[in-house]
């Protein structure tokens, strides 16, 4: 157990708390980038190189940028919105934290008792990218197809939901005339 892991854990946890408590939503999204990067570091420390890099590419590169993009498009980072939100948060956030802490306490008991499970010091050999690719094409070929289908459906669904309605109506009429 190296001190590096503890340092990374502290940074990750602190930025996660910041992402959920800061007033300005843009600051929240930027703190989330730190959380994702810290988690990628922890994955690397655990020996999951490919997963750590996938975390950087997918979360830091795509999800965080998408969140920032939507925040800026909807202008919910403006001060007026934040002020209104602050009044609401004061009256209701107490319950959310209480419920979450109760759930967290139950999970922490489980995590603590996991220390009594039989454990191995190190996996026999850490899989490289080649092993992961071979596993994806053989044992996990079916799940890979399903994930591809899911991503296609999510892409089409996201485009349709976010499409302007008048434009959808025009397209439907053109379809009907044909």
């Amino acid at each position, binding site marked *: 157990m190296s001190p590096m892991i503890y340092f990374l854990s502290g940074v990750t946890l602190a930025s996660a708390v910041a992402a959920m408590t800061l007033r300005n*939503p843009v600051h929240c999204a930027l703190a989330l980038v730190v959380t994702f990067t810290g988690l990628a570091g922890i994955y690397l420390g*655990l020996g999951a190189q490919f997963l750590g890099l996938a975390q950087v590419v997918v979360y830091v590169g795509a999800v965080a940028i998408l969140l920032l993009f*939507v925040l800026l498009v909807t202008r919910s980072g403006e001060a007026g919105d934040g002020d209104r939100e602050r009044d*609401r*948060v004061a009256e209701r*956030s107490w319950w959310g934290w209480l419920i979450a802490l109760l759930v967290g306490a139950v999970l922490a008991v489980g995590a603590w008792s996991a220390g009594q499970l039989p454990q191995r010091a190190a*996996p026999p050999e850490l899989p490289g990218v080649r092993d992961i690719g071979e596993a994806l094409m053989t044992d996990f070929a079916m799940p890979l197809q399903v994930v591809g289908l899911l991503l296609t459906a999510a892409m089409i669904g996201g485009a349709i939901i*976010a499409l302007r309605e008048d434009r959808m109506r025009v397209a439907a009429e053109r379809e009907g005339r044909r």
Partner: protein
Amino acid sequence: MTPPIVPHLLLAVALFTVGMAGALSRRNAILILVGIELMLNAANLSFVTFWRFGPKPDPQTGLMFALFSIAVAAAEAAVGLALVISLFRHRRTTSIDAAGTMKG
């Protein structure tokens, strides 16, 4: 001396707790999605932890589980943010208090 699986799992629990608290208490729909992303990341961390320290010498299954979980989380973020944009187009705000029309 606690075994190394415990601090990793406790970090995952803490991340899950923070994400859940945020998802339950924030009023901005985008920040609720941020909380859900944090919870999914905590679940991923516990997958990787059990893959690394778990007793069963299976070389890749835990890793694959986390990988597919990342793909599902990406799809969830895309659809969720499209819903937020759709809400913003109708109500000119991203606060979920504006979306209570169907509240009983």
